């Protein structure tokens, strides 16, 4: 790919004919893949041009596992906080306690991972200098800060038994911020130039929201006596269902940007995540009322959620490393725009609009 010097005459084109194809790379392109097992993916060639195969956007410097763990823990904590508050008002002390501890522990740990990922951790508080609605991380900070304060305090109170009256208030505050905490992380990833994140910017919050409930529900279900665990189980089942459905919207997209979710390491993560989540879901439905079933399915769902975070994270990373994920969609976008402009007719399939190569 980085052949160095252009091969003789490679793809020189007339000035007035379509896009350049110098240093053209042919890629096997999977289209409409991921429809499920057994389905044959359609593959065709994609041609695009690059600068010695060099990537165009930078690979995020966010570290793994810090960030995937942050995403996972934040989600689990957020959904647990909601569950805990509702359990509290509906008189489920055991579930309340588990959920509060999950929310508290998860939030504190997530803060730790978040800070650890900073290049200058000692400057964490600079996050509070400004409040920027255009920065999901800034907004997230103003979600995470009260959430972790409230959830952390609530969990501490739960453990230590002090100021019991504050518990409900703290739990309620955490619950208010819990949902946003779990879903803003979808925006956090999507609001970047990382092709395979940004492309699915309306879907990732649902993936993460569902995943958060699967994880939070799963963990609470596993650690709560069966008698009180039903809401957790139901939330986990519903969350896992939403997660799988939303993920299908991502992986099943016929955009080239779905490709990284299928290939290589992220593909493995995603397949494992799907297996765990689907397995956990099934087990929860079938055996969740039993203690062992609750524990096993809860663990599977949490693992599925965690793997989803790793998979999504890694897929985005992978999409930055190959310039085709920048060039091809943008070219398609331009071609569609051009077709629309020149013909006045509906753009139709943007992929068809670009019939230059091949």
């Amino acid at each position, binding site marked *: 790919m980085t052949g160095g010097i252009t091969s003789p005459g490679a793809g020189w084109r007339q000035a007035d004919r379509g896009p350049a194809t110098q240093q053209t790379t042919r890629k096997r392109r999977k289209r409409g893949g991921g429809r499920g097992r057994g389905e044959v993916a359609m593959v065709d060639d994609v041609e695009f041009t690059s600068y*010695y195969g060099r990537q165009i956007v930078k690979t995020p410097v966010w570290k793994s596992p810090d960030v995937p763990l942050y995403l996972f823990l934040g989600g689990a904590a957020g959904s647990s906080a909601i569950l805990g508050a509702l359990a509290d008002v509906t008189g489920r002390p055991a579930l309340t306690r588990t959920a509060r501890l999950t929310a508290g522990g998860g939030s504190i740990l997530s803060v730790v991972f978040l800070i650890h990922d900073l290049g200058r951790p000692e400057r964490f508080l*600079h996050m509070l200098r400004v409040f920027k609605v255009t920065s999901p991380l800034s907004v997230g900070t103003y979600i995470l800060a009260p959430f972790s304060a409230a959830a952390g305090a609530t969990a501490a109170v739960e453990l230590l038994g002090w100021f019991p009256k504050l518990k409900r208030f703290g739990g309620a505050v955490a619950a208010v911020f819990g949902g946003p905490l779990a879903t803003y992380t979808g925006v956090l990833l999507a*609001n970047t130039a990382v092709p395979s994140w940004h492309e699915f910017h309306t879907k990732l919050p649902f993936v993460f*929201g569902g995943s958060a409930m699967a994880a939070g529900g799963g963990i609470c279900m596993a650690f709560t006596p069966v008698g009180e665990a039903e809401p*957790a189980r139901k939330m986990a089942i519903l969350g896992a269902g939403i997660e799988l459905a939303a993920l299908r919207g991502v992986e099943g997209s016929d955009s080239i940007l779905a490709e990284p979710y299928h290939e290589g390491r992220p593909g493995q993560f995603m397949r494992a995540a799907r297996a765990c989540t689907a397995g956990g879901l099934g087990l929860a439905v079938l055996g969740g009322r039993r203690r062992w079933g609750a524990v096993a399915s809860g663990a599977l769902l949490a693992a599925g959620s965690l793997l989803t975070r790793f998979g999504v994270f890694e897929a985005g990373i992978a999409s930055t490393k190959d310039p085709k994920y920048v060039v091809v969609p943008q070219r398609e976008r331009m071609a569609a725009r051009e077709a629309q402009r020149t013909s006045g007719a509906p753009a139709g399939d943007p992929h068809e609009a670009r019939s230059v190569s091949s």
Partner: protein
Amino acid sequence: MTSISSVSAAFTGRDPGNRLYGPVPDVTEQSGYEPEHPKRVGFFTDTSVCIGCKACEVACKEWNTLPMDDSHGVRDALGDLSGMSYDNTGQLGANSWRHVAFIEQSRAVDLPMPSFGRPGDDRPHAHGMPAPDTGDLNSTATAQASVLNAEALSEFDPQTGQSGADKQVRWLMSSDVCKHCTHAGCLDVCPTGALFRTEFGTVVVQQDICNGCGYCVASCPYGVIDQRKDDGRVFKCTMCYDRLTDGLMPACATACPTQSIQFGDLDELQARADARLATLQDQGVETARLYGRDESDGVGGVGAFFLLLDEPEVYGLPPDPIVTTRDLPAMWKAAGKAALMMVGVAVTAIVGSRRPR
């Protein structure tokens, strides 16, 4: 407090002031500066006159005391020969704020050509894929016997040297730099306010603020800004903010021997670039195009724009970048809905469960 309500644009998508996307008449004022602020400045990099000398790279490093790095941005490392023509810088990054790209292209010329005419009209037809295997040396011999209209050939464009009669060789060189976007993804996503827009309309990292969260790195559609691993903070072109405060041009534009890098008030540069493009097009240089000049593009036009002689991706530039923030309202809405959904699911789960005994 009317202004504070404008932040709702980020959630609602109702954005009459184009605060997230679209043309902005005065991005400096939009960033909170007094109307008497200095005019927005920028770079116009005319690659048709670039000689690839890399003075810009060195002048930048000298002024900004950047460390040396290899072609993958590794600090204080001397890389191997990259093999990418004369480019051993490789990319823009935390330690290289100017990067000269070198692209070698060649094509055989298929002649004979007819009459002389207006330059550009009678440009020769070129093969799309001419005899790629030049292991056959006879191609040189055939070419020697061919008829040539070198006059027309040479007009092809400023960086096409007609090399002999049988071959055109084009060596494109282009000095890349931070674009100082009107809608700058890096600036938008920065949670600390370390990245900010200056009174000159440029986008700069405040090194006393940056905490190295790295969000900007992922959010630049051009892959400009990067983190210095050992330092933790992010770095990129400042358009020599300190020099600007002293009334001096940025170091790269000061050094550039051929005025490929032009610095000045952005509106003036835009006019100059339009004129240059018209001149080149008059000369028949159809491959010339401006990149980043269009204020209605995905980033609202940029402060450092280019005249290119080929498609942007040939130079390692994204062909149609869009600031990620354009879609932010949709994202917040999705996140909000997803959060509500979570509450809904939780309530459903609670309500749908048997009351504990």
